[in-house]
C-alpha cells in the first residue's frame, strides 16, 4: 500500500542520497566568491561550506557545476542532493522545494553608472531599467520596486550593461560586488548598499528536495554546528571580508 511506501522512504540520510557516501552538490561555478574557478580548481565560500557540511555528515562533497536552471531542476529530479548557489528562500519556492536554515544573510547593493544623480536609493528605480539575472532574487526585487528588467546572464554582463548605459542600474549581493571590487577597476560605477529598512537581508539557504526530510534535518544540524564552532564565520571572513552569517 501507499502508506508503507511513503513511510519507508526518507527515513535515513543514506537512503536519500543520490550516490552512496557522497553529497552531490549542484552549483554554477561561475559566480565569485560563492563558487568559481581559481587556478583550475573549483573554489569559493559555498564550495568550502559544502565540504564542511559533507564532512559533518560523514560524506564527501561531489560538485556538479552547471547552469542556473539546471541546478534547480537537478534537485527536483533527484540528480543532486542539494544546491548551494546563493539561493534565496521565498514562499513561492518553498512550495516546490525544501530549504535549509539560512547560512548567509545577504544584503543588496544598488549599482549605477558614476555620476547618475537620478538613482540614489532603491525607490528611485521605479520606471527605470535594471539589469539582473533571470530567475534571481535581484530580478524579483527590481520588479517589486517597479523597474523594467533587462535580463542578463551574469554579474559582469549586468555591470557592462550599466556602464554602456543600456541599463540604469543593477542590483546584486554586496558580497559579489565587494569581491569584484577587490580585483577590478570600479571607477565607472557608484555602489550604494540598500539599508535593511528598505529591504530586509535575503536569507541564503541550501535547496533540497522536499522528499529529503532526513537529509534536510541533517544539513540543518550540520549548519548549526558549523555556526557554533565558528567555521561559518571563518569562511565568511575569508571570502567576504566580513561576517554576514548573522541576521543583523
Amino acid at each position, binding site marked *: 500500500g501507499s502508506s508503507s511506501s511513503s513511510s519507508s522512504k526518507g527515513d535515513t540520510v543514506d537512503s536519500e542520497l543520490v550516490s552512496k557516501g557522497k553529497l552531490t552538490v549542484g552549483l554554477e561555478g561561475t559566480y565569485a566568491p560563492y563558487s568559481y574557478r581559481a587556478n583550475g580548481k573549483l573554489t569559493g565560500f559555498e564550495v568550502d561550506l559544502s565540504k564542511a557540511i559533507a564532512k559533518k555528515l560523514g560524506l564527501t562533497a561531489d560538485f556538479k557545476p552547471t547552469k542556473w*536552471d539546471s541546478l534547480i531542476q537537478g534537485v527536483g529530479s533527484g540528480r543532486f542532493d542539494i544546491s548551494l548557489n546563493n539561493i534565496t528562500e521565498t514562499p513561492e519556492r518553498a512550495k516546490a*522545494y525544501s530549504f535549509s536554515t539560512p547560512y548567509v544573510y545577504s544584503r543588496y547593493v544598488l549599482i549605477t553608472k558614476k555620476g547618475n544623480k537620478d538613482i540614489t536609493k532603491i525607490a528611485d528605480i521605479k520606471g527605470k531599467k535594471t539589469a539582473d539575472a533571470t530567475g534571481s532574487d535581484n*530580478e524579483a526585487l527590481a520588479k517589486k520596486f517597479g523597474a523594467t528588467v533587462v535580463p542578463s546572464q551574469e554579474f559582469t554582463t549586468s555591470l*557592462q550593461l550599466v556602464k554602456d548605459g543600456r541599463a540604469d542600474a543593477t542590483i546584486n549581493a554586496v558580497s559579489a560586488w565587494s569581491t569584484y571590487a577587490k580585483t577590478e577597476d570600479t571607477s565607472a560605477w557608484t555602489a550604494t548598499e540598500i539599508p535593511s529598512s528598505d529591504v530586509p537581508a535575503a536569507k541564503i539557504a541550501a535547496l533540497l528536495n522536499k522528499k529529503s526530510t532526513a537529509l534536510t534535518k541533517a544539513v540543518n544540524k550540520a549548519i548549526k554546528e558549523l555556526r557554533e564552532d565558528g567555521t561559518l564565520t571563518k569562511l565568511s571572513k575569508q571570502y567576504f571580508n566580513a561576517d554576514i552569517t548573522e541576521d543583523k
Partner: protein
Amino acid sequence: MVQQIFNEYLPNMIKAGLQYTIPIAVVSFILGLILALLVALARISQLGGAFKIVKGISSFYVWLFRSTPLLVQLFIVYFGLPYLKIAGIFPDGIKLDPVVAGIITFSLNTGAYCSETIRAAILSIPTGQWEAAFAIGMKRSLVLRRIILPQALRTAVPPLSNSFIGLVKDTSLAASITLVEMFQVSQQYAGENYQPLMMYSLVALLYAVICTILTWLQSYLEKVTSKHITAGEGGAN
C-alpha cells in the same frame, strides 16, 4: 498549476514569440537571404582584379560565421562592439540596441549558411541553360537574373526552409543579449516557480507548433515553385 499554464505561462510565452521570436526570425531571414544572394554571386563571379578582394572577403565571412558558435557571435556584436572606439566616427564605440544587434547577428549567421545553399543551387543548374541564354545574346547579369536565379531559388527552397526553421529555434539564444523572447520568458517563469523542466517543455511545444507550420509552408512552397520544373531539362523523353 494547470490553470496557470493556460492563463499565464502559455499566453505570455506566445506573446513573447509574436513580439520577438517570430519578427526577429523573419526580418533576419529576409536580410540574411539578400546578403546570401550577394555573397553567392560574388563568390561565383568571374570578375578578376580588385574584385578578387570582394571574393576573398566573402569567403572569409562565410568561413567565420560557419565555424564559430552563434552565441559567441551574438555576444561579440552586442558586448564587444562598444569597445570598438573609432575617433571621429564612433567615439563611444558601437552600441547597438539589442533587437538591432540580434537582427544583425542572426542575418549575418544565416546569410553565411544560406549563401552556401544558394551557391550550390546556382552551380547545380546545367551549363546548357547558361549557354542557351548566352546564345540568344544575353549578358551574364541578365542570364543570372532571368534564367539561372529563378531556377536556382526553386532548387534552394527545401534547404533554405530548413535554415529558417533552424533560425527560429536559434533565436532562443537572443536571451544572452537581453531580449525577452519566448525561451527567456520560460526561464523567467522557471526562476519564479522553480519548475524549469515544465517550463522548458511548454516552450518546446510552442517551438514545435511553429516549426510544424513552417514545414507545411515549405511543402506548399516547394509544390508551387517546382510546378514546371522536374529533374534537369524537361522534354528529353
